[in-house]
């Protein structure tokens, strides 16, 4: 293209320049205002308006994988938003469902969304639905049944179903050697804190995300509290067997030599004895783990 010599005078150029600058500045300023009107949470919820993956598949022509990547990129940005409510996580499930409809071999989505829905969101049913869908399309990936096992064991308190999935996982190539033994232990000693602790430790090693691992560390502390409470209640029982009455305080167990010391409460609370019925509670956690209330 050829340019002709400047025909505008300086004032003309200055005017044109300032007009462009003013319009550009106003557009950028307004963009910030418009974006603020649409907070991140609203944008996240927009993912729940995504059409069913089966139709989207047709609409995106040959670019299924690319479309799946784009939707997933949008979704992961909102994962980890701690203010998200349990209900709010439903859109996450929907987004992951759509992404895996578009690209059923996208294993990372099953793993990440499955773990987040189970560990964080308290939506084990959705987590299991997504993970078993992943198992149908990717029967060779052992981590998927392993996570289903977690949901059944820890979130739904069904060690029998959990063991079943651990067994499936243990038979897949690349699965860790400890898995069959762990599965057996968890079936036989359902509700045993030691087995649960070992399992949570192994699961934590499978997770890449630091925050998910933090959540699991918290779960482990809760299991340790349960373990301590069982230890102390066993002490109370032995005290009653020996002296024919309940101790007044937990310290009595140490004074009478029944236990060597009162364990430190890992959540930062203290253990208290209910002198009326001999049960032990922790001030650190409001209720005992559901898994052991049977």
């Amino acid at each position, binding site marked *: *293209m*050829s*340019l*002709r010599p*400047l*025909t*505008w005078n300086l004032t003309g150029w200055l005017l*044109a320049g300032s*007009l*462009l600058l003013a*319009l*550009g500045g*106003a*557009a*950028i300023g*307004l*963009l910030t*205002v*418009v*974006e603020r*009107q*649409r907070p991140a949470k609203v*944008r996240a919820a*927009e993912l729940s*308006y*995504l*059409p*069913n993956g089966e*139709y989207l598949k047709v*609409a995106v022509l040959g670019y299924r994988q690319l479309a799946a990547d*784009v939707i997933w*990129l*949008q979704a992961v*940005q909102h994962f980890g938003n701690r203010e998200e409510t349990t209900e709010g996580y439903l859109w996450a499930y929907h987004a992951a469902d759509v992404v895996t409809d578009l690209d059923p071999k996208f294993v990372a989505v099953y793993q990440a969304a499955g773990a987040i829905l189970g560990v964080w969101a308290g939506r084990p049913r959705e987590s299991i639905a997504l993970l078993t869908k992943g198992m149908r399309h990717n029967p060779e990936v052992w981590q998927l049944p392993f996570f289903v096992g977690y949901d059944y064991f820890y979130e739904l308190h069904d060690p029998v179903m959990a063991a079943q999935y651990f067994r499936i996982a243990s038979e897949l190539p690349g699965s860790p050697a400890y898995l069959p033994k762990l599965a057996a232990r968890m079936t036989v000693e359902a509700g045993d804190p030691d087995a649960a602790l070992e399992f949570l430790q192994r699961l934590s090693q499978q997770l890449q995300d630091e925050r998910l691992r933090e959540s699991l560390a918290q779960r482990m502390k809760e299991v340790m509290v349960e373990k301590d409470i069982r230890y102390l209640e066993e002490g109370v029982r032995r005290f009653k067997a020996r002296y024919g009455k309940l101790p007044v305080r937990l310290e009595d167990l140490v004074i009478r030599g029944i236990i060597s010391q009162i364990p430190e409460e890992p959540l930062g609370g203290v253990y208290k004895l209910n002198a009326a019925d001999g049960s032990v509670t922790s001030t650190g956690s409001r209720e005992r783990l559901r898994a052991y209330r049977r």
Partner: protein
Amino acid sequence: MRQVVVIALNTFRENLRDKILYNLLFFALLLIGVPVLLADLTIMEHRKIVTDMGLAAINLVGVIIAVFVGIGLVSKEIERRTIYTIMARPIRRTQFILGKYLGLALTLLVNVSIMLPVYFGTLWVYRAPVHGALLQAIELIFIELLLVTALALFFSTFSTATLSATFTLALYVIGHLSTDLKGIAEKSESETVRMAMKAVYYLCPNLEVLNMKGQAAMGVSVAWSYQALASVYGLLYVALLISAACVVFQRRDF
């Protein structure tokens, strides 16, 4: 002003002669045909698909016209050398650009206005709910079309038709992704990546703020203040692009 109107009407007539409105046939076929093809779905799904498909078609057909007619607005006149006859008349170059733009904008307006009753008619036939949110979404779609037309016109003032189409389509894609790209870049370790993405975010038009199709199809409307601000944002960007196009065109040698 009279010159602008004359050029605009002339561009509109030219578009009609080019049989651009034939796209409406394609639009109607799509709206009527696809739900028939998907006849084995439940009624609820039918309604959702008709609603989604209509909004998407209005948007897509409009963008195709905006890009491929938009890039020819100026370059065609130059190729056919009709620009010389126009420039020989008492018409300023800014008036020419403005008139060309408004002509295509009018074509798009007529196009969308014909699509609208066809769309609502189809919704009515399928007993799909017609709500205000759909109108909001279509208004924002129209603003997006105006913006895309301005982009195409701007590029066509200084580059070839093929390159202009490539640039416009590239900006259209970036415009729909820039918010997400900025979000991803914010988590990046590298300061350069963060700065570069910020620049892309602020410089490229953000078309995602004009996209309400998903929620409108579910019957969820947006606040009027948002609607207004988003529209003003789109129009400001249009003004910026048209002004830039005028400045560039002013310097071209004929």
